[in-house]
């Protein structure tokens, strides 16, 4: 018995239930905060940086005269892309966690369809134009996919 006359086990169980409920509420709040939409400017910036970077890499192969500069420009765009991904993910104070148990879900199209389409477009361009064609087509397709995702209604974002 404790001071209030309740059996200790009953009190412990109630405390355990309360603690579990509090933990559950905290997790839900964090998922909501991490899964909310980011401003579309991050997705737009990512798309443009990705497209410009891969196009520069592809052109570096096609135009060896400017190869060094185009490669450097591509690398700069890649750095910009990852910087935008990082800044976008940290926007709002909470970053998303990869969770198996719930949280905001992305659509099947966003998860699988769009990446497969961009890879397919790149593969088609690779047939006549080789690696340079793959690089340019894949970059432009992925950039376009990012722009579409920024301006179409969405369920969440990786930004």
């Amino acid at each position, binding site marked *: 018995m404790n001071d209030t006359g309740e059996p200790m086990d009953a009190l412990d169980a109630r405390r355990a239930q309360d603690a579990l409920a509090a*933990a559950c509420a905290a997790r839900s709040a964090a998922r909501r*905060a991490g899964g909310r939409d980011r401003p579309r400017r991050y997705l737009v910036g990512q798309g443009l940086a990705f497209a410009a970077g891969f196009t520069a890499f592809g052109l570096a192969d096609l135009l060896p005269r400017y190869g060094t500069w185009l490669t450097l420009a591509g690398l700069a765009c890649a750095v910009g892309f990852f910087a935008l991904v990082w800044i976008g993910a*940290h926007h709002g104070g909470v970053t998303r966690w990869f969770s198996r148990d719930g949280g905001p879900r992305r659509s099947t199209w966003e998860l699988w369809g769009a990446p497969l389409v961009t890879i397919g477009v790149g593969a088609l361009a690779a047939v006549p134009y080789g690696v340079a064609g793959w690089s340019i087509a894949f970059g432009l397709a992925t950039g376009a996919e990012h722009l579409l995702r920024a301006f179409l209604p969405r369920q969440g974002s990786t930004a």
Partner: protein
Amino acid sequence: MSGRAGDSPPTLDRELHHPTRLALAAYLSACGEAEFAVLRDYCQISDSTLSKTLSALEKTGYVSVRKGYLGKRPRTWAALTLTGRRALTRHLAALEEIAATARRAAGTCADGPSEAGG
């Protein structure tokens, strides 16, 4: 007081026993990183309390704290480490077990009150 079952009792983590620490760890477990202000607002505690709590959890290796700048503003980010995630999972499992044991005991008492005095 022999209300518990004969098997070994679940192990609660003393470092996560306090409600604020548990809420903090649970919040961090569902996100990659969270900013100091976000955690303070969620837990509704003062800056100094949160700072002390994060320091204590950092000492145990459950939380990693990263300081950075956004423009000229200093920002502090906290994340739950792998050790912290495992500890939280064990702690929550222990809590679940306590609650489940109590539910089972309550069910047994309701089924056979005449045997309770034995």
